[in-house]
């Protein structure tokens, strides 16, 4: 069956569309709304968005593949994006990634951990250089990372 937006997301979609002069212009916000509902942008989701915005599905794919912030693959409940641009890189982003891989039981960029909770990717500058190293988990920033801090966070999420 073709996917649909939930009634509440539908409202958000309509609101997003109403803010622009034409439907096509609402592509980015609508894709974000879709990502919140479905977790990642599958082909079916692209078709849904295309239908909603009255565009050929190709135009949607075009945009989705252009931006790295749309997940093209399923992600874990906690999608961890570790900044690895200069400031974080100097301050140990590589060690952060290694330690996270070890703790969460999933390799960076290789899908979801067995318990379905974690996925890890490297991200380009997230604009929080002053508190490097840092990571973004779903919508939240965790900054000034240390081993202890990561232990605390991951253990909390694991026990949930």
């Amino acid at each position, binding site marked *: 069956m073709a996917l649909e937006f939930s009634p509440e997301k539908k409202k958000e979609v309509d609101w997003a569309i109403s803010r622009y002069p034409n439907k096509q212009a609402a592509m980015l916000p609508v894709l974000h709304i879709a990502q919140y509902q479905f977790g990642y942008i599958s082909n079916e989701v692209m078709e849904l968005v295309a239908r909603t915005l009255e565009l050929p599905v*190709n*135009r949607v794919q075009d945009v989705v593949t*252009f931006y790295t912030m749309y997940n093209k693959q399923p992600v874990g409940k906690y999608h961890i994006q570790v900044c690895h641009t200069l400031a974080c890189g100097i301050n140990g982003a590589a060690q952060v990634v290694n330690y996270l891989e070890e703790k969460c039981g999933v390799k960076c960029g290789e899908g979801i951990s067995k318990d379905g909770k974690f996925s890890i990717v490297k991200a380009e500058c997230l604009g929080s250089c002053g508190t490097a190293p840092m990571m973004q988990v779903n919508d939240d920033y965790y900054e000034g990372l240390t081993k202890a801090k990561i232990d605390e966070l991951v253990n909390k999420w694991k026990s949930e």
Partner: protein
Amino acid sequence: MPLVKIDSQEVEIGKNETVFNAAKRVGIDIPFYCYHPGLKIVASCRMCLVDMVGAPKLVPACSTTVPELPEAKKIEGKFDAVIFTDNEKVKTARRAVLEFLLLNHPIDCPICDKAGECKLQDYSFEHGNDASRFVEIKRVPQKKDLGPSIFLYTSRCIMCSRCVRFTEEISGTEELKVTYRGWHAEIDVAPEKPLNNKMMGNVVDLCPVGCLIDKHERFEGRVWNFVHTDSICPGCSKGCNTTLDTMKHQKLNLEELVDQVYRIRPRENMTVNQWWICDDGRYHLETDKKKTRIMVPHVKQGSKLAEVSWAEALSVSLQKIKAVSTKEVALIGSPYASNEENYLLGKLARLLGTGLDVSKPIYGDTQTFKTDKNPYPFTIESEKAPNYRGAKTTLSLTDSQLDKTIADKKVVIMLGSHNVELKSKPETLIVIGSFEDAVTAQADVLLPAALFTETSGTYTNKDGAVQKFNRAINALGESKAIWQILVELASGLGQSWYYENVGDVAKEMIENVNAYKTLELDKLYPQFSTLNEQMVV
């Protein structure tokens, strides 16, 4: 109008005219990739950068227009812009653009079908560096199958996006898109939505490099061996202008050289087909290959058609015609034959006082490609013959009434054979045709006729444009041009006609057919060259 100086030339430039266009008008060629006159301007390739005095950096010629300056601000007292297309700054920029394009480009030229007509080759030679500074490992994406007739050699792409814009703006089918970005950008189709429409062949012509390759033509020939001939597509009554690329083709183990049409390409004609042709026309000869060509004259002996010599076939035909009164003979023209050929047939019929008619063309699907971005919708006509209007005009007929015309006739001579339905078979049926079909199977005499690639003539399209097609290759087997066959028949019937070539026939036709009085012979049949001229009647 703004006045600009381009290099050393003064040019008046239109209000919305681009620098690129103005330069072209005065013979200055600016290199380009993403620009195409039929597509929207995106100015993404940066190959056309030029130096405009006063601009903070180089500007793309393909998208830059020049506004008129107030009198006091004019440069050198009179110019609205001063542009250099060939100074050191521009040359350095071109070298840099080409260096970028070549970073990941494979050195495929020896096996690439585009080699010889590739813009990347040409510009690298003209504007590029002689050696690469890139020592890293190249990215090598694999070739992709985009659909029934096209491959994408991904690594050769220079991301000009012409192909994508074609499917968006011209065909409106939107199959192609750019996926990912930067270093990883690739042209692609959506899963399970292959590039498959009746205009798709055009993207291969559009691609400035050898990235999009036609499966029908891949590895079949090298472009520098081709001879180009202006032609007209016989696929439907639209009459698209085409170029036939032909090649002498050496058959394995045979000494003999066979002429072969290797590909059919669109030829620009703004009033008829703009820059495009449909795939029916492009692969016309592929379809022909599936039919059986009539190579030699045949005469019915007993119940079977037997191969005979031209002399015998003609004498049998003449015997049959002479055996009945001329009232019992009918000559049938064809919407697949040229104006000249139909004209001669009509002339013969009137001289002898026989019946005269034209057969109906085949009708098929019509399809229109149109989008709101394209001012020239492209329609593939349902009338699948190039010259129905022309045949009717030259024969002064308003419509085909074949059954009525041949009802009481004993001998019927038909031009062309395209599965015309005959209600009753006349006593003697003489067919001058190229391919075997239901009609030729019933024929008593079969005279092999040359195809449109093997003879010259004119077609009149549905809008009345008389357009010339030219002989590109030798007639196959023993086939002859229809007009020559008609001349031989006429001389056997006591008419002494003399035409040196089909141009002579055209000259007489223009004098005698009222509708064609305004045609200018030397434009249609210039003595030494072929022009693309077309005239509307």
